[in-house]
């Protein structure tokens, strides 16, 4: 039997990118939030809110751009809620974040299942959305054999996600406001004493980060391309993003690599058997690995990374020193 072995590899690479870029959005967003000193465990819920509103508004407007903007605003509003409660009202971050997940998933299902009189639109029926989400081959790069079509022929949101991640890396490391933001996450009292408006930095960046997560949620909806159905589009990706932040050592550029690594396992779960079929001698064993192991691997790896980095007590680790602690000015 003659098989297009190269084709299998290319499709595999292509799938790694297509199905896992939402992780990059979630992770980049969460890194921005955590760099301001806030641990937001609401990623899953925020992505769900971004998904449902981006989907509905995007379809009714028949515009991908409107959908993206709506999902960003919906996510940012969740961030605003989180910031009001934790920054201004000093509420516990873990509790607020977890509640945001419950609440966000509640909103997702309530809106999706609840309004039963309405027939939800199918995204594939809207020409502007369908065409807007079509693959765009990068000239030159996409011609590289084997890798080209796998890595450099994707929809606009893939490129946008990578650009946002690289942009955020640049922002955090090369701009004054970015450096100040990191100071806020490390030691808010010290940042406050040199005249940085800590609250404003926290509010802005929590909203920005959550907005980026919202776009990630919309991407997941677009990937399904159909209409709302009662299973959740987000399906745990928000939690993987929380893990990926640690794996990427709070670095948005490394998050791109991390997305590829976690995405690799994710894709093995789905198409490991086609690899095994194409390369029976070398990769035949892949078909005997339980798929649940691939699903657990991102979390297992992150757990190991967490333990090892705490044993080594890395001084140059990317984790903000004040992560998870509220800053109460009067208590300095």
């Amino acid at each position, binding site marked *: 039997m003659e098989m297009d072995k190269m084709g299998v590899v290319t499709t595999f690479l292509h799938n790694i990118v297509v199905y896992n870029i939402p992780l990059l959005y979630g992770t980049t967003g969460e890194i921005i939030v955590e760099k301001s000193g806030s*641990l937001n*465990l609401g990623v899953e819920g925020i992505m769900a809110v971004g998904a449902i509103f981006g989907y509905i508004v995007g379809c009714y407007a028949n515009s991908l751009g409107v959908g993206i903007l709506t999902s960003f605003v919906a996510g940012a509003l969740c961030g605003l*809620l989180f910031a*009001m*409660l934790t920054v*201004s*009202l*000093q*509420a*516990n971050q*873990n*509790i*607020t974040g*977890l*509640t*945001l*997940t*419950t*609440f*966000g*998933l*509640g*909103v*997702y*299902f*309530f809106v999706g*299942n*609840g*309004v*039963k*009189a309405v027939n939800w639109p199918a995204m594939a029926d809207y020409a502007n959305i369908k065409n807007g989400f079509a693959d765009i081959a990068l000239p030159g790069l996409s011609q590289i054999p084997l890798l080209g079509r796998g890595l450099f022929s994707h929809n606009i949101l893939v490129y946008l996600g990578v650009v946002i991640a690289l942009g955020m890396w640049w922002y955090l490391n090369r701009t004054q406001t970015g450096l100040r933001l990191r100071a806020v996450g490390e030691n808010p009292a010290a940042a406050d004493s040199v005249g940085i408006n800590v609250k404003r930095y926290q509010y802005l960046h929590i909203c920005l980060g959550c907005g980026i997560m919202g776009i990630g949620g919309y991407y997941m909806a677009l990937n399904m391309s159909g209409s709302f159905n009662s299973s959740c589009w987000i399906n*745990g990706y928000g*939690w993987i993003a*929380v*893990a990926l932040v*640690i794996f990427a050592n709070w670095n948005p550029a490394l998050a791109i690599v991390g997305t590829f690594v976690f995405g690799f396992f994710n894709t093995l779960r789905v198409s490991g058997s086609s690899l095994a079929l194409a390369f029976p001698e070398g990769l035949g064993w892949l078909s005997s690995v*339980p*798929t*649940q*192991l691939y*699903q*657990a691997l991102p*979390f*297992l790896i*992150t*757990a190991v990374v*967490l*333990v090892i980095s*705490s*044993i080594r*007590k890395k001084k140059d680790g990317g984790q903000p020193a004040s992560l*998870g602690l509220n800053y*109460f*000015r*009067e208590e300095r």
Partner: protein
Amino acid sequence: MSIHVVKRDSLSFGKKVLIYLGAVATALILGGLLLLAMGVDPVAYYSRMFTMGMIGNKIAYKAAENYLKIFVPLVVTSVALSLAFKMRFWNIGGEGQFILGAVAAATVAFQLGPILPQPVTLLLMCLAGMLCAGLYGVMVAALKVKFGTSETLLTLMLNYVALYFITFLGETQAAWNFYLDEESVRPIFANFSKIVSFPSIPIGKFGLNVCVIFAVLIGILIYVYLKYTKQGYEIAVVGDSPGTAHYAGMKVNRIILRTVFLSACLIGLAAAFKVGTVGILSTTVTDDVGWTGIIVAWLAQLNTIAIFVISALIGVLQYGSTAAAATFAQVDSSFADMLQGAILFLVLAADFFIRFRVVFAKKGGVTNGNG
């Protein structure tokens, strides 16, 4: 003019309760407005929800039994989590500990159930569930005290490791996998309720499951433990200030390990109650109690008595919304999740005004913040 926020001395108990009730009422009103916008009568919906559809229902006792099946795992898990939270140990791994406890208890049921007398099997199920869950939890505590590993993030990761472990058991057909139903072509978990299950005490038509009694007993024991024993006192001191505890000669690390082990053990026990009652494993065996329990414990401010009240209410919310969905088809049962979220958000906001006072001061004016 500048605005200051200062800590206030404690409010009276009555005032606190009033503020919290106000927050809950606000959430209900917001939910009611949403219902109104959808063309649903909020009063009719809420009365259906809060009575859980039991009024005028011939099989109301069944509804009560099913409600208690939701209540017991939730209340035991919440009480368990409150132990760890009191020490500011962020055990958000309740889901994972519950799953391992459930698998351990089911293992005993399948393997020993057919040969041992029922009470012995049930006891062993509880012990196995407690041990497995306890070890899963204390492992994190050990890493925390030894290396300072973040327990929040690590327990979070371990939840998913456990989830995919039980998914693996549920989806893998093999000769060794005694958890699955042998007669089914598709992989589904086997039911062991014919082998062993917690008995019910009949009161008229209503059957009171013994786990309800155990849950109440656990609540009383933990209340006494926290309030009147030396170990309970140690937990409070470590939670307030580990430095003070250390200075007072307490072995802080040992207290943390012991308490987290106890916390996780109780979650395993909740899991044993659950599988011992329903008689079957499932990948959704936790019913999210590991998550909801965190919210309950926090809403109750880690007070054991309040945990019972709040668990009962959250149970009503969850069970009632399902019951109400039968009458009001256009309102999805996820309304309960939204309402639960809104209640907690408003309580968290109200909390601020209980802990702090907002002071308006003229610029340059003298204020020491205590008025």
